[in-house]
């Protein structure tokens, strides 16, 4: 069976003034559908760069990246936007909700920017179902600044799932949450992975997340040092 993610020889380098910084040095990695995987490593190790490339937010300097059977290595900006919209959900450390939209509008936003597609009524029904799934059905018309940190991250999770993506990328999703809320968020994502088969890939320093992961990848100095190939 084909892997959901296949990275071969991925490198990423930047120019900082006269200096060339190499963030990734020939990363090979495969992830299968339904995995619950964490990427760990010290600050500056390259894990955020790796997630950016896997999330099609950035392009590799060299190497090949196949996502769900599509080679996205050399796609242009708008093609990558479509890939992100169709196949990837994002959960950010700082939630990144749009402050002028209420909870329901934030959740439906990735579908609202699609051209054509489902009817507003059908979309709204799915939004309400997802809001129920993350425990926010009472807050559909609240603005982000009326919610707690944990509630905001639940909105972000619902927004990541509204497009029924093949992959959800979470960059330090519990970093801005207290312990209890972090546990709840981790439990929620585990349940979604278990019950709906959603593939999750995290970057984190949080040992609680690592502890729940079914697979842990370690990256150091831009290279995978452990767990790069699927078990």
């Amino acid at each position, binding site marked *: 069976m084909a892997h959901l993610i296949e990275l071969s020889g991925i490198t990423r380098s930047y120019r900082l003034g006269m200096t060339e910084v190499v963030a990734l040095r020939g990363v090979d990695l495969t992830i299968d559908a339904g995995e619950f995987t964490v990427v760990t490593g010290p600050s500056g190790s390259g894990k955020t760069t790796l997630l950016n490339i896997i999330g099609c937010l950035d392009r590799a300097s060299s190497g090949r990246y196949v996502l769900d059977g599509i080679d996205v290595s050399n796609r242009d900006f708008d093609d990558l936007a479509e890939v992100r919209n169709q196949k990837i959900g994002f959960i950010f450390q700082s939630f*990144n909700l749009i402050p002028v939209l209420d909870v329901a509008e934030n959740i439906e936003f990735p579908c609202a920017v699609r051209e054509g597609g489902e009817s507003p009524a059908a979309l709204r029904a799915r939004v309400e179902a997802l809001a129920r799934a993350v425990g926010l059905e009472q807050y559909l018309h609240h603005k982000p600044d009326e919610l707690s940190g944990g509630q905001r991250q639940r909105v972000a999770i619902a927004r990541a799932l509204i497009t029924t993506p093949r992959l959800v990328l979470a960059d330090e999703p519990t970093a801005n949450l207290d312990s209890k809320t972090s546990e709840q968020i981790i439990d929620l994502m585990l349940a979604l992975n278990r019950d709906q088969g959603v593939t999750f890939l995290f970057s984190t320093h949080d040992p609680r997340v690592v502890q729940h992961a079914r697979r842990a990848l370690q990256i150091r100095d831009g290279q995978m040092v452990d767990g790069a190939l699927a078990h």
Partner: protein
Amino acid sequence: MALVKLALRNLARNKRRTAITFVALVAGVGAMVAIKGFMNGQRRQILENQQRGNLGALQVHRKGYVANVLASPLTLDFADSPALRATLAAVPAVVAVSPRIEFGAQLSTPDRRPPPDDGSDLPEADRGQSSFLLFTAIDPATERVVTPKRWEWVSWARGQMPRAASDAQVVLNDDFAKGIAVPLWAAGEAVPPIEQQLAVLAPDRDGSLNGVNVVMAGTLASATPNDRRVGLMPLATAQALLRMEGRVTEYGLAVAEGADLAEVKRLVEAAVGADFEVHTWEERLPFVRDIVDTQDFVFGIVSGIFLFVVLLGVVNAMLMSVLERVREIGTMLAVGMRRRQVVQLFIAEGVVLGLVGGALGALVGFAWVSWMNARGLSIPAPGAKVPSLLRPSVDAAFLARATLQATAGAALASLWPAWRASRLRPVEALAHT
């Protein structure tokens, strides 16, 4: 969710900045409407003075008259027939027909005192003076309907208009008359002896010089540009001077208020046939048209500068908005928003700013113009000494155009900030702090 809805919410996000931008737009567009209203009022003043004070709405001449007016104005005359007047009066919207003759003549004032008994010459200061003037011979009875403002202008100066077409009287420009010390004859006084009267000398229709003695019954206050060397003379007196009894060079026509002048002109042309030509004030006075065109041109430049300055404010507001929302734009791009959609979002915000600010500005300007229209501004028309009420006015088409210009301008002003927002790379925008 509709872009306009999102744009509205984004504008409401920073209320103070949006309010300042709105105020600039309202002030800019409001000022544009007010200036245009003032110019329209001034234009109407000029038009009224020319139409109702000098020419009438339309003039009928023999074919070729206007082209040859300087060379042989009197030979292109025609019979002042009741039938022709009736034909013209029967044209719909024609209110009155007034016969005229336009001619050039020399006006001489009498010596201030008799010559010395010793046969020596009068000192220069006591001698009469001669000047060349352009006279219009009029029938006071009909002219009063076609150019009633002449009577108004006399009331602002001195004396009175002649009562009858056969009166041996003239009316001169007040400044001119004072300049050469023309004595005013007051109605009811005895007519002075011939040597104390004015002499008007003019070549008749055949080119022979002829003269007539007249008194100055009144003076006209200056009300239009270049009217210092013009005079009025009763028609029958002028016909005798020019040996043109029963003939005229022009009919001045009064037209009903609000009538379509071009259409009335077409009907008059059809009524009088190919032997005659019909002119509007614009055709007789191209310099007035030039003044109006120049005003329009200057207004275009001034309003363009106004709009440009106001729109710089819009550019600034939109750029600030982009800078404040870098992370948010990054999030939108990350979840799949296309660059084109980002451009559309910011342009939608500019369009809402321009449309609402422009429409409010047009309304504020229109309110001022309407108020001033009802009240009237007592100021002279350009080149005039006679005060008249200037009533500013604007039409709905201009208000719509001003609003559209503000909207289109704001959309254009948003292009650059929108383009900058759309060129953000999501990975960098998301990392922005």
